[in-house]
């Protein structure tokens, strides 16, 4: 892949650049998905670009960790709900 996009790059590679996020997010049509997947499979540079973007999305998803609300928050929520009329077990 060229250093800048102003340089000439093949049309198929440009399609990958413009639509890779849609592809990774499952937002493309079945036909477009098939075409992109087929090109990525045979183009080492687009494959590397895809791996780079997938790594980024995986890293972002990794920020989602199980996190429990502290007891102080649960106590506050339950107290305010009780004040508002909620009757729990």
């Amino acid at each position, binding site marked *: 892949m*060229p250093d800048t996009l102003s340089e000439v790059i093949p049309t198929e590679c440009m399609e990958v650049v413009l639509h890779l996020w849609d592809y990774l997010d499952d937002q493309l049509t079945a036909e477009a998905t098939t075409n992109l997947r087929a090109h990525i499979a045979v183009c080492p540079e687009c494959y590397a670009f895809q791996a780079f973007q997938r790594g980024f999305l995986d*890293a972002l998803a990794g920020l989602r960790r199980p996190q429990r609300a502290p007891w102080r928050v*649960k106590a506050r929520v339950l107290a305010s709900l009780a004040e*508002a009329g*909620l*009757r729990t077990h």
Partner: protein
Amino acid sequence: MKDQDAAFEREALPWIDDVYRFALSLTRDESDADDVVQDTFLRAYRSWHTYLPGSDCRRWLFTICRNVFLRSRERARPTVELDATDVDAAAAGSVYAIAAREGYEDIFSRLDLVPAISDALDRVPEPFRSALIIVDVEDQSYESAAEMLGVPIGTVRSRLFRGRRLMQEQLLTYAIDAGFAPRMACVEQRRNA
């Protein structure tokens, strides 16, 4: 106990941990998150009659939570929307080209970058950050995000793409400035090519 109270306790309250995590990611402040979570559940209880039984309660609570957050910041929704997703996608291609040239293709899989990824997300401005949190961190669909944010799906997409580009630019700059070791074999290979 009233039936509606039982339903609220059964369907809404179990999501308190998720709502807290979401509130914390929006506010970036524990004290503010506490307030937002309390207000979220209070509003949810008072408008429980608008909840459709059997629908996605977590999504419903996230929607309320984000609205509470926005009101707490007295931040009006932006009126100018982007329609330049191609520009952001193309710019991300340029970010990758630089990363590849400098030997940072594997930068996002490096454990030592994890704190920087979290910091970079915090620095992304609204409304792009909320789109990233909802779709990329909380793994919600474009449709769910559109419903939570009260915007068309195309707007979710444009906000998401802009947010991703901003994060990648920040992270690559950080990696280079902070002197993260590039994959030298890769750099040497490119220099000798």
